[in-house]
């Protein structure tokens, strides 16, 4: 493999504490090393910014609901859908890009890893077929557990060990990465057209509460010592006044310590917090609750969060929070897609237009930015758009421009039709903080890598780490003051290295790299009870046979398996 030396760039690397100093980065055999020989190819990074490849901690990029969103929205292909120069395939879709476009666009933005945030186990084969077809970036997927019948039954009796054994079994069957929990209990209730809006609402029939599910899944996750923590989409998403339920849910993690060999410190990752940080009692008196929520998060070292920034676009909402999508459809009356998945989960989809002229949407935009700006520890707060829910991931450069330039976000804020209302309902106008390039590297590289348990190889530029490197046309000494300029610089990397290979050059895709699928193989002691329950449920309630449930090896030909031993837990 070829050797490279990236010379004279301004390096931002939280792993080594490098804050824009000029430093050469040497690359060999897919890894970053201390020194290369004189024959190494020189990449001139003078007046450029050098960071590790970025990691997407939460996005909906592969699987049944993403694909339903694609094909039932032909109109989404009216925008920006064509083949670009380079060795690429046809690219299609704006809010829900095709798999090819997804891989290329992440790479052009400087990303090298993406986590698919919600995999229904029964549909795991579909998720992996799409991951397989997504070029360049490494990916993993989180199976959903928060409404799974096994989990509800085990946790009703607080059987953490059985829960853990079942999780380990599912991770192996689905080639899954960790434990996702969406609207715990509420989605099972939705199978009867109901919901759980607080963490104490009982789940119909199963006689368990969301609080018990959340706490039990955190405990099972730590019992197994998985690389990532429990990853939670809370109850009561998107409703005024929900910040109380949000803080109630986060409190459940109090006193629990992370147990793992991956350097992960949090026990709970709370996703798209923007959607969960609302005060008020209705959309009329709606206010930002970002401060209250972030005050709590800032104090609790065992929590991480991501933002879920609204980008003010036309997009496609999709979530395993089935009742929420039904509710949303009742508000905007756009086409509603729903799938309930036997024994496991559900999903809903509704197109959505975040019209900046609407005070509520403009306020949601402000809440998302507040979450990031209130974060005291950028290593625990990651930037997302909950793609495509709050906006497409391709808008990250614009989100960065709002976070990095007060001028830029104030211009946007004051140009809203209902600016006065938005300013009074939120605190954004009072916030002067501007996220620095170093903080950005924490929020998009080192932070998410640590949160996902991947900090050994990802998120930094120290010797021995993966040579996943993004080089931007940004001179930190002359950082652009103008929003569109910031946006442009982040939208197209000068270079993207993936595993030591140049995959994007001057914004053009030149190599498909060697994409890997990550999953976690957790060893547990033989558990006759759980195996018996699995057998029984497949015989009686599933519509597929147990032997046809696993994801075959051939679906992930380049797999990277992370082993975990929980036999002595």
């Amino acid at each position: 493999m070829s050797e490279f030396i990236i010379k004279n760039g301004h390096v931002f690397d939280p792993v080594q504490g490098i804050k824009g100093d000029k430093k050469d980065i040497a690359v060999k055999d897919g890894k970053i090393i201390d020194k290369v020989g004189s024959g190494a190819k020189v990449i001139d990074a003078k007046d450029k910014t050098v960071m590790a490849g970025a990691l997407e901690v939460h996005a909906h990029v592969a699987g049944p609901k993403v694909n339903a969103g694609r094909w039932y929205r032909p109109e989404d292909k009216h925008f920006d859908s064509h083949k670009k120069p380079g060795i690429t395939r046809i690219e299609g879709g704006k809010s829900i890009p095709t798999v090819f476009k997804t891989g290329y666009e992440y790479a052009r933005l400087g990303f090298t890893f993406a986590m698919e945030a919600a995999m229904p186990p029964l549909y795991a084969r579909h998720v992996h077929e799409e991951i397989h077809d997504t070029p360049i970036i490494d990916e993993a997927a989180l199976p959903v557990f928060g409404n799974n019948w096994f989990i509800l039954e085990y946790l009703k009796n607080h059987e953490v060990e059985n829960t853990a054994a079942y999780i380990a079994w599912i991770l192996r069957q689905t080639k899954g990465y960790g434990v996702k929990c969406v609207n715990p209990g509420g989605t099972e209730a939705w199978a009867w057209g109901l919901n759980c809006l607080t963490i104490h609402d009982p789940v119909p029939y199963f006689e368990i509460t969301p609080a018990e599910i959340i706490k039990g899944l955190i405990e099972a996750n730590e019992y197994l010592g998985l690389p990532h923590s429990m990853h939670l989409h809370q109850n009561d998403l998107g409703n005024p006044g929900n910040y109380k339920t949000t803080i109630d849910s986060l409190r459940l993690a109090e006193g629990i310590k992370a147990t793992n060999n991956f350097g992960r410190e949090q026990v709970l990752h709370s996703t798209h917090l923007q959607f969960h940080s609302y005060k008020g009692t209705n959309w009329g008196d709606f206010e930002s609750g970002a401060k209250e929520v972030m005050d709590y998060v800032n104090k609790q070292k065992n929590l991480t969060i991501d933002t879920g920034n609204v980008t003010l676009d036309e997009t496609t909402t999709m979530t395993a929070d089935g009742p929420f999508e039904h509710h949303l459809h009742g508000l905007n009356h756009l086409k509603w897609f729903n799938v309930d998945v036997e024994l496991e989960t559900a999903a809903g989809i509704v197109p959505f237009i975040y019209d900046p002229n609407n005070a509520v949407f403009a306020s949601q935009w402000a809440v998302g930015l507040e979450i990031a700006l209130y974060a005291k520890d950028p290593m625990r707060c990651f930037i997302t758009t909950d793609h495509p829910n709050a906006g497409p991931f391709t808008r990250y450069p614009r989100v960065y421009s709002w976070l990095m330039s007060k001028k830029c976000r104030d211009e946007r804020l004051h140009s809203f039709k209902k600016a006065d209302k938005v300013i009074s309902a939120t605190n954004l106008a009072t916030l002067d903080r501007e996220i620095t390039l170093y903080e950005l590297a924490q929020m998009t590289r080192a932070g998410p890598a640590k949160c996902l348990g991947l900090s050994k190889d990802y998120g930094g530029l120290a010797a021995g780490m993966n040579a996943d490197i993004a080089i931007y046309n940004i001179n930190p000494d002359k950082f652009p003051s103008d929003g569109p300029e910031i946006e442009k610089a982040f939208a197209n990397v000068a270079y993207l290295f993936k595993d030591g290979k140049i995959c994007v050059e001057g914004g053009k895709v030149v190599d498909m790299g060697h994409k890997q699928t990550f999953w976690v193989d957790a060893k547990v002691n033989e558990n006759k009870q759980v195996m018996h329950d699995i057998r029984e449920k497949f015989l009686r309630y599933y519509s597929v046979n147990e032997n046809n449930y696993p994801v075959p090896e051939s679906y992930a030909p380049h797999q990277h398996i992370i082993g975990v031993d929980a036999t002595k837990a």
Partner: protein
Amino acid sequence: MPKEVTDVICPFCGTLCDDLIVTVSDDNKTILGVKNACAIGAEKFNHQRQPGRVKRPRMRQADGSYKEITYDEAIDWTANMLVKSRKTLMYGWASTSCQAMSIGHEIAEKVGGIVDNCATVCHGSSLIAIEDVGVPSCTLGEIKNRADRVVFWGCNPAHAHPRHMSRYSIFPRGFFTVKGHKGRKIYCVDCRYTDTAKCADEFIQVQQGFDYELLNAFRTAARGEALPDTVGGVPKEKIYEIVEDLKTARFGIIFFGMGLTHTMGRNHNIDIAINLTRDMNDHTKFAIMAMRGHWNVTGSGQVLGWQYGFPYAVDLSRRDQARHQTGETTSVDLLNRSEVEACFYIATDPGAHFPVDAMISSSRKPTVTIDPHINCTTEISDIHIPVALVGVEVGGCAYRMDNVPIETRKVVDPPEGVLTDEELLTRINHRVDELMAKGGQ
């Protein structure tokens, strides 16, 4: 010693039963018996050992007879046809695997093909309706475990999906449906008294062509508005009674088929059926599902979806953009207007399903058909390339009618020397590359 292969997936209809047991001869060459399959499913396995199966590609001669040629010759001819034609209809895909489709799409993107599947003549109208209004649905196991009201509208699973009723929709006992059939109320709406109607608790005979009106009346009744005395031949009292009963369901489901997609109104029928389902969700939980017929037609829609963003009729002839427009990029319309320069058929039999005029137009174009067996289409093709039977002689992924993917199983070896779809398409793809590198385009 013959051996048994268990958990075999049936390769025939969209029900995708995955509990078949197939007995195979010691040498892995012959299927000796099939358990659990319905008659039409078993037939598919029995095909495997039919005498006289074509094992090598055949090329039509000037006198209309067929001459055996090698795979290499057939591949070369096909690649040349694809490269020369500026617009090729690449239709079918319903009986092959998703893995094979992927390779086919790669070829189509290079040569400017139009990829279309059987939805174009069956549930295309359902897909149009879903593109317009969405769809609330569920997996088949949800029906088994929860449904207490089941409506079959314009579909006849007793014939088209024989095990559907016993596995999912009428008879099974599930978690919340311990009484099985006794706990479910089954409605059948059709213009004829079908064998499915015989299994229903209530048969509602709708006057032919009045499905839209009747669905509209259901919506009206659900809102408590006034109805005329009869709608589509059904008395209004009956309509109110049924709607009230559906509202008291804990979990209801509507299954629909060709009787709704291919009668007057077409996509509008599906549109209003979906809207009725949506309305019912204001009262209880309700879902609706298309009875997708042709085995993996659903999978074709999925793969096209994630690669191009459309479920069928995907025009790649511009090479830098994918387009999808019913009436414009749909197979029958393309053939009727004679807009394509060549035809490439795989894993289905348009000769048996397309309107005659479309097939006459097709027969005038250079045509290659890839199919395990001789069928109506192979007989109007310049070349017929036989392949292994997917789901019998080679595995591969297929999607069930509720979009659940299942990796199918190989149970016997294909006949000596016969290629699989994936192998064949990979070789065509390479040959296309070679020809294009030489400036064939």
